[in-house]
């Protein structure tokens, strides 16, 4: 039986609130008990499917770093009766598009399939998810590609900064480890490691699905069982919470480049923290809002010290932090960092103005509905909400949560949660006149492998 629960959702758009977009999110449970969210739209003959498995590279055995990443790369490299080329030829003949990616918290599968041959495309994707072959020849080829990327990332200042930042912030927790592995660990991975990673990372109890496009709830229900019904029910326990472990200071990693790259950050807020929305708006004003943010105004527009500077409030599954990045010439990065520190200080001390708060609310509430434009983007939003644990109603309530933030509240949160003394910078390059603080702790040696930082 298909249990399709419909919820009509009206998104209020723009400041005047005159224009309304309606999308209808249906909660679908397959006959086999797999849940998904669906938005039907029959105007273009294809379906976008976004699937997330909880766990991601966080499931890597510390002695087998990079196993989940290499396994993910091999999902499209042969399955069932087909070797890699036969699999890809079959996919291309159906004009279906599959992509597989893995991050610190989730393994994601994105698929687009034409209505005219959807059943065959689902069969093919099922084979990739349930029966990957891990053929030796494909494994060696993809291993070579991963090693090539690791070598490239070891020369990329952004990656070097990100890796050092996360390693120092999270230590032995999976977030602190190189999630694509090291050249040594990747070279040592065996077929058994890949099979174990597959069994652990693709399980039914941690799966979330968003579907948008030319498909009915009944059709989606059948699709879910065919696609995911044969996966293992459950996998190993997921990693636990970790505190952001960096204290304030500056550390410098020498790298020959005309420009220095800096990553900076401090502790953040959990997604379900009652102050989260105030902090989210605050971040927009400080460094999240493109040209309009204080940091862009002060560092780029007024002083021309950078092409881009920005901040983000990051609530991961198991850690929360404020993070920013900047690139600036070696002889100017010191000044740029001084300006950022001064802005961190100013917003903690003086808060924001009513005008800034109003402008931020107008932007954030106006911009939100603009994200729902296209099957692919909507499917991505649906699955992201499920991973975060938000209900479908959130899309109608979200703007009210932004509107409810008061000046008093946001300035209290600025005073309590913005911590200039804990703002930590990792600078990669040959910065001039930038003293490494004593507080920075032991110098980080150049890491060989790096976490996704951006």
């Amino acid at each position, binding site marked *: 039986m298909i249990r399709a629960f419909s919820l009509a959702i009206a998104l209020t758009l*723009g*400041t005047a609130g005159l*224009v*309304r*977009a309606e999308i209808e999110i249906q909660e679908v449970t397959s006959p086999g008990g797999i849940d998904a969210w669906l938005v039907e739209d029959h105007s273009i003959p*294809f379906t976008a499917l976004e699937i997330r498995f909880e766990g991601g590279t966080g499931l890597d055995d510390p002695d087998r770093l990079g196993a989940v*990443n290499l396994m*993910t*790369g091999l999902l499209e490299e042969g399955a069932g009766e087909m070797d890699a*080329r036969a699999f*890809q*030829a079959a996919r*291309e*003949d159906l*004009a279906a*598009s599959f*992509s*597989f990616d*893995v991050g610190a918290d989730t393994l994601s599968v994105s698929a*687009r399939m*034409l209505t005219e041959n959807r059943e065959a495309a689902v069969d093919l994707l099922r084979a990739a998810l349930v029966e990957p072959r891990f053929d030796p020849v494909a494994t060696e*080829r*993809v291993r*070579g*590609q*991963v*090693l*090539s*990327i690791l070598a*490239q990332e070891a020369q990329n200042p952004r990656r070097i900064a990100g890796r050092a930042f996360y390693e120092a912030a999270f230590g032995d927790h999976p977030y602190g480890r190189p999630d694509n592995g090291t050249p040594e660990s990747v070279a040592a991975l065996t077929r058994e490691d890949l099979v174990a990673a597959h069994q652990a990372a693709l399980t039914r109890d941690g799966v979330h699905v968003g579907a948008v496009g030319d498909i009915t709830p009944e059709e989606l229900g059948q699709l879910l069982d065919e696609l995911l019904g044969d996966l293992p029910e459950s996998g190993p326990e997921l990693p636990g919470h970790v505190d952001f472990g960096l204290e304030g200071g500056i550390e410098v990693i020498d790298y*020959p*480049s*005309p*420009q220095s*790259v800096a990553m900076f950050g401090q502790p953040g807020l959990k997604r379900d923290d009652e102050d989260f929305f105030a902090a989210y708006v605050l971040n927009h004003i400080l460094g999240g809002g*493109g*040209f*309009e943010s204080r940091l862009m*105004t002060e560092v780029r*527009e007024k*002083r*021309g010290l950078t*092409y*881009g500077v920005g901040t983000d409030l990051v609530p991961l599954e198991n850690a929360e932090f404020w993070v920013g990045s900047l*690139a*600036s*010439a070696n002889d100017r990065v010191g000044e740029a960092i001084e300006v950022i520190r001064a802005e961190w200080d100013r917003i903690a001390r003086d808060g924001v103005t009513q005008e800034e708060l109003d*402008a931020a609310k*107008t*932007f954030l*509430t*106006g*911009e939100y*509905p*603009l994200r*729902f*434009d*296209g*099957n*692919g983007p909507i499917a991505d939003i649906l699955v992201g909400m499920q991973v975060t644990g938000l209900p479908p109603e959130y899309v109608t309530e979200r703007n009210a949560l932004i509107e409810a933030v008061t000046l008093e509240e946001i300035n209290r949160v600025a005073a309590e949660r913005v911590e200039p003394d804990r703002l930590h910078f990792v600078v990669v390059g040959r910065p001039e006149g930038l003293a490494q603080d004593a507080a920075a702790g032991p110098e980080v040696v150049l890491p060989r492998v790096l976490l996704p930082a951006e």
Partner: protein
Amino acid sequence: MLRRLALAAPLILALPAVAQEAAPAADDAVTTYTLDNGLELVVIEDHRAPVVTQMLWYRVGSADEPQGATGAAHFLEHLLFKATDDLAAGEFSATVAANGGSDNAFTSTDYTAYFQRVAADRLPLMMAMEAERMNDLRLTDADIETERQVIVEERNQRTESNPGALAREQMNAAQYLNHPYGAPVIGWMHEIEELGHDEVRAVYDAYYAPGNATLVVAGDVEPAAVLALAEEHYGAMPAEEGLPERARPQEPPQRAARRLSYEDPRVSQPYLLRGYLAPERDSGDQREAAALTVLAEILGGSSFTSVLAEELVFEREIALNAGAGYDGMSLDDTTFTLSVLPKPGTGLDEAEEALDAALAAFLEAGPTEEQMDRVRTRLRAAEIYARDSVEGLARRYGAALSQGLTVEDVAEWPELLQSVTAEEVVEAGRALFDPDRSVTMTVTPEEEASR
């Protein structure tokens, strides 16, 4: 999962955001008009979401800059976010943001485009502001100086810090001896440092005019209503006489193979690039470009089933990646490029020989019907998927109309691609792959210098 190396050059943006390139064409709900002052208007309807994108495309890019002033068109693009008669510096973007929208701009060799994405009912305000900055820019020396520093940092970030980008820049300079496509869109650093009010103003005065622009409005709009709004906001601007003709210096025949070796300690693994000058899509005459597009797809469009992947990656097992690229959207002659990333332990010499052998064998045997069918399926499906992004369609039309093509050319392109024959693919390849007209570049870390 990022396993493939990106070897293609992106457009230059005012903000560090990533531009989505449109997939090839579809039949769209497209309506076109031309205002009395020459402004072309393209309306693309998509009523799925109450959103609209306005894009104003000027037919001026880096290849239209005077000699010695590379980067002027891109510099000007940055300055259009500064003051005008009625808007303070920064007020344009602040107003877009205050209306819940986002905006940006980008410059290429052939065009400069500005866009905003907002709720559909905000279109009149966007038009009023965009029209304002077409003629009423107020350039100040202070704004120019500050923005120059921003652009220097942009070049540092995009190019100087990126050995792949530096290599492509050198490759491009070697490809074009005489045509301004040989210079980078962002400009050479020593010329960016010398650009001033006069160079930037010259581009603005000569090219920013209604008769030199295409306005694309895409999203939840009705064509007649958009036309009325465009008449109101842009229609009153006078037509400008004497718009410069876009006649750039053309390439002489290439009579000798060109070879470069770029060494940089920041390169992690050696690779090989090969380029050939190739004809672009011309209005009413797109057939050879269509054949070249299919050729690039067959040689390098898939990491698994393309000719180069099959031969170099799977059969001979000497490469991690092998690709081919061709984009026919260009005002003047464009390039067809090939790339090989050898496996560690395989020399670049061997990789190059294998590449040439694979090309020769392909031209000898021609594509199989299976290969042709697979590419046709891929291109046809790309059209269906492309309809999911109205912004992508807007870019497709804006770019085409800024590069000498018409709406009709865009509309017939998908069918043209489907009609390309195996014989035409071979013919296009034979005309293209002449060793005397090749440019070959090796990119290596210092210590491994090319052999």
